[in-house]
């Protein structure tokens, strides 16, 4: 009894320790999983499914290990209580049971381990899938980054474009203002030129009209003057005739008058007025 107890105790402790280690490992794994899960910002169906499977496996493993432990404890209590009478027999049975229990524990552990490996594989797959997702995410992130960069570039390009547009608009505005100014100046110059031409033409026309008026007035004056002079000349001749008629009639002697009559008749004879 005394010799078998350390052995049993060691086996039990080993099983318990193995179970505890497994539990700790599982807890750590779950913790790590949750930590990683917390790091994942975007849940997806694969991860949820893996998580659910992992949780089920862990739950089954825990349940089986608890069953094995409780059965082992029960078996140990039973063995300890009936040790006196059935020490030899039971020792063997106990050993057998213990061996079976150990084997079952080992099997259970192996099963758990296999399940765990399977789980690990699945988890690895899930992780791989999550990697794919992550890659996708990374790709998306990269895409987002690219998009962001593109957006940034676009924004910067747009900003640059806006700057260039602003500069162009400013330049265009300046050039437009300059052009408008030039056109306005040209219009003003043209207007001034037209006005000057118009004024010159008007002045010329006015001068021409005034000259025509002056010429017409001068012609009128000359005509009036010539008419008056002609009238004066006629009056002079009439006055001369009147004067001569009055004077010569009295001053000329009869002989002179008759001589002049003879001169007139001689002239008529010369002209053969009387045939």
């Amino acid at each position, binding site marked *: 009894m005394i010799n078998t107890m350390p052995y049993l105790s060691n086996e039990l402790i080993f099983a318990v320790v193995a179970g505890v280690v497994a539990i700790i490992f599982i807890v750590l794994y779950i913790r790590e999983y949750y930590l990683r899960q917390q790091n994942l910002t975007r849940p997806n169906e694969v991860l949820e499914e893996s998580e659910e499977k992992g949780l089920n496996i862990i739950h089954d493993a825990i349940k089986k290990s608890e069953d094995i432990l409780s059965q082992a404890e029960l078996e140990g209590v039973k063995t300890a209580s009936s040790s006196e009478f059935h020490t030899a027999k039971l020792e063997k049975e106990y050993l057998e049971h213990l061996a079976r229990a150990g084997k079952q524990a080992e099997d259970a552990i192996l099963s758990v381990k296999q399940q765990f490996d399977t789980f690990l594989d699945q988890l690895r797959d899930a992780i791989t899938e999550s990697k794919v997702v992550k890659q996708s995410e990374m790709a998306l992130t990269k895409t987002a980054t690219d998009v962001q960069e593109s957006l940034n570039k676009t924004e910067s390009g747009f900003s640059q474009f806006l700057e260039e547009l602003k500069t162009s608009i400013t330049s265009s505005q300046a050039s437009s203002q300059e052009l408008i100014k030039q056109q306005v100046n040209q219009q003003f110059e043209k207007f001034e030129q037209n006005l000057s031409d118009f004024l010159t033409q008007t002045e010329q026309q006015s001068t021409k009209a005034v000259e025509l008026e002056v010429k017409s007035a001068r012609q009128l004056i000359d005509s009036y003057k010539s008419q008056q002079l002609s009238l004066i*000349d006629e009056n002079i001749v009439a006055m001369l*005739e009147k004067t*001569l*008629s009055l004077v010569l*009639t009295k001053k000329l002697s009869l002989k002179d*008058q*008759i001589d002049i009559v*003879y001169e007139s*008749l001689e002239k008529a004879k010369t002209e053969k007025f*009387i045939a």
Partner: protein
Amino acid sequence: MSALSDVFLQNTYTTTQAKRRLVLLRFFLDSKLFGGTKTLPDVDVNDQVWIGSLNDNFLKEFDKDNIASQLKALSDELAKMPVLTMLVAIEIPEDKLSELGNWCRQQFQKQILVEPKIDPRLIAGCSLIWNGIYRDYSVKAKIEADQTQILQSFQDILK
């Protein structure tokens, strides 16, 4: 022209003389053929000389029976005589007119009568009307013809 008219027109050069002397001849012949106390009123000396110059042959052409017809024929002949109308500035004495008439008959036609008229506007000289055509040979016409030169002379004087 008949012999009567030739004798009648001797020393008769104007229409006025012819008309007056025709009347004088009627008085003279009436007195000679029919007698009477009719005397010629205010007979001009020249007309008296003219009456005295009429020869017997001329007077024998008239008798009591043909005196009217002969005078009418003579009158008609005188009326058909060519007349030179002479416009003068002053009244010319009849003896001077006779000289002018004689000159015209010598220069133009033998059978011509001068009809003197007065136009003081002529100043001197005369203007003539022959066969309805008027032509001025007076001093007035000369002045009008030389009007430009006269005016120029006046203007030269005024300057």
